[in-house]
């Protein structure tokens, strides 16, 4: 007996070293946490490599800061689009709604009105909320596909923009605060302060999460794992601030994007409303039976979409310091939808993150920026953007198929 026991013990493989196990756990957790972001990061690196090899100006501090300013508009709109996509709906009107907002703001700030900037922006946001309300109410009361309603309203708002601008051609914006939204850069010290605040916030967040997992008796990430992630964040954030400070500094829009990201992420992930949005996108019947006011959720989401679109429009107008008849046209709509979709928000509803839309917007803006640097023709730009959107959608469909296959 004792002989055989000894024999069976000696058969067992030698236990792997503690360090190796730790490393493997790290790998698994990293892969699990960032699986949906990985393609994006790879895409970003590929884009950076391609454009840098074609044009030496792509990876410079100056262009980096430009990129942040350029992506701001798309990113803000994409934040709103994420919510609509989470419901499994689509808002095609965001482009021209942003134009309507920009034009109205420009008119309010201009001579005959001469409103102060805060009043103008407040009214514009109110108008946008009204537009979203209109879309949502039509969609919910008549139960019409949102694609069609927003397609129609796309046309209508385009008409409205042309109507308002009329013969003016271009309306200049002279309010320094509004212009500052997209053209003010934080002094270096403030930039570093901001970086410190973010790192501390991320740290608090991580340790809170760790504690929560521990309380629920679920084995979470190890302490060293947390430290490593935190270190990664710190390096990333400080790197961004460092690069930005080598040029003009961290742009104000960057801070705005961050604030919006925090607020909207909180809304999506840590409020009942956010859960309801996910639930409606996941299974409308279930949400309805659970007593969730599905219709009001839908209307609210379209209002969020329109409000974010109007904010995007304001940022875009501030960057150009003017509004003209081309506002909201061209690629804006597609870029913002593509940013959300590339960011991993599923078109089938119920899956996606606000933060990923930021990365998606960075990718789209990077492509726009790079293609601009290379001096590609508008036709090629459309073509490439379309293809990128297609690839993102294919990836989404593929992932969905895989999920369904598993489940």
């Amino acid at each position, binding site marked *: 007996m004792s002989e055989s026991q000894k024999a069976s013990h000696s058969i067992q493989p030698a236990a792997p070293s503690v360090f190796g196990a730790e490393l493997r756990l790290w790998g698994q957790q990293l892969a699990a946490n960032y699986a949906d972001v990985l393609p994006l990061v790879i895409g970003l690196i590929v884009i950076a490599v391609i454009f840098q090899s074609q044009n030496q100006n792509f990876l410079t501090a100056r262009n980096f800061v430009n990129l942040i300013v350029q992506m701001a508009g798309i990113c803000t709109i994409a934040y709103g689009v994420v919510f609509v996509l989470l419901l499994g709906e689509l808002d095609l009107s965001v482009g021209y709604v942003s134009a309507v907002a920009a034009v109205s703001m420009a008119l309010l700030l201009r001579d005959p009105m001469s409103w102060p900037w805060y009043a103008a922006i407040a009214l514009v946001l109110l108008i946008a909320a009204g537009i979203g309300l209109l879309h949502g109410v039509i969609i919910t009361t008549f*139960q019409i596909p949102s*694609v069609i309603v927003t397609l129609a309203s796309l046309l209508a708002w385009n008409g409205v923009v042309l109507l308002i601008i009329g013969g003016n051609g271009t309306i200049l914006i002279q309010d320094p605060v509004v212009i500052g939204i997209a053209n003010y850069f934080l002094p270096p010290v403030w930039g570093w302060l901001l970086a410190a605040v973010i790192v501390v916030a991320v740290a608090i967040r991580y340790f809170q999460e760790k504690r929560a997992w521990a309380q629920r008796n679920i084995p979470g990430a190890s302490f060293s794992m947390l430290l490593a992630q935190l270190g990664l964040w710190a390096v990333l954030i400080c790197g961004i601030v460092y690069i930005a400070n080598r040029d003009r500094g961290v742009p104000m829009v960057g801070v705005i994007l961050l604030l919006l990201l925090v607020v909207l992420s909180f809304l999506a992930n840590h409020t009942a409303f956010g859960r309801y949005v996910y639930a409606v996108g996941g299974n409308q019947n279930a949400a309805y039976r659970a007593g969730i006011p599905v219709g009001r959720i839908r209307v609210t989401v379209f209002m969020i979409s329109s409000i974010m679109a109007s904010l995007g429009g304001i940022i875009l107008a501030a960057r150009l310091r003017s509004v003209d008849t081309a506002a909201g046209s061209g690629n804006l709509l597609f870029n913002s939808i593509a940013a959300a979709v590339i960011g991993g928000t599923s*078109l089938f509803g119920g899956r996606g993150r606000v933060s990923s839309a930021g990365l998606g917007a960075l990718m789209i803006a990077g492509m726009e920026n790079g293609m601009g640097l290379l001096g590609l023709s508008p036709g090629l730009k459309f073509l490439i953007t379309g293809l990128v959107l297609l690839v993102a959608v294919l990836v989404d469909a593929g992932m969905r198929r895989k999920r369904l296959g598993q489940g």
Partner: protein
Amino acid sequence: MTFFQDLQRVLRQNVREYGMFIALFVIMAIFTVLTNGLFLSARNISNLINQTGYIAVLAVGMTLVIVIRHIDLSVGFLAGFLGAIAAIALVQWSFPVVAVIPMVLVLGIFTGLITAFLVAYFGIPAFVATLAGWLIYRGLLLQATMSTGTIIIPNAAFNAIGNGYIPDIPGFDMIPGHALTLILGIIAIVIYIVSEINARRKKQTYDFEVLPRDIFILKLAFIAVVIGLVTWVLSGYNGLSWTAIIVLLVVGIYSFITTRTVLGRHIYAVGGNPEAAELSGISVKRITYVVFGSMGLLSALSGILFTSRLQSATTTAGTLFELDAIAAAYVGGVSAAGGVGSVFGSLIGALVMGSLTNGMNLMGVDISVQYVARGLVLVAAVIFDATTRRRGG
């Protein structure tokens, strides 16, 4: 029951079916009044038909796409791009017209199949797949016309498709105006009346509900008068245009396919309930390929008609066609819930949209207002669909 009570009841019950006629009638009446009759002039009616042609063709295809619960946003720039290909083939490669047209049509089918592949094979929602198509075809159009800008087509045969009229019968001068058009109109009226009476009799033998006799006669008379009036007006000008013939042919063929063939039944079955259709042995994928393939084909045809009408390919050709086509389909009674909608209805819908554009252009309405109006009409049509659908179900 009196005649008027009957009429009221029939109208209420069939509001979906007659809504578009009423809309067309109202729009025409309004524009006739606003333009002091200019709208109903022979020249303008002829123009209207030629302008509506390329939208009507798209609307026919879009009807089937919406019937199977999809949507195609790429058709506008696809039409523009394929039109540009036709122009390039004619002008730069000097291909003969007889080679160019089949080539472009085949290319259209091919692009339609690509969309279908994305939708059917990968399960991508059609609106996103075609949104990507919208960008890609717009890019391709710009690329194709980048070096030359607008490509002017000097080919008379090609340009006749969008601008020419059918020849008159030589030496037939007893009747004033365009004799062949009138004869065709009369033939159409006779065929219509005979087929309607046949259909009614067949329904009666199976004890189906039919229109009351007097209302049926009223309907026949009304349609006959409308066809007669249109042909009369047209014969007073240049007669039927080739565009009109092509559109009528397309509508005729598609009507036949959708109402009289197994394929048509299958398309509607898939639209009504895809799962049920799949379970009863219909390949939903194959139907998707067929419908998007036909959409591509009709986009190509639309592109040819538009290019021929402008006698040139431009960098912005096809802008917002998809919107007009979708609106036309909805006005024509397609339902967003799938499985409902007729090809003939979309032709009427296309006429409504065409009349709207044409009338506003005649009045010199600003383009911005036109956008708003077209958007509102689309919303109104969809709301009309939703409310009548719910009352029905």
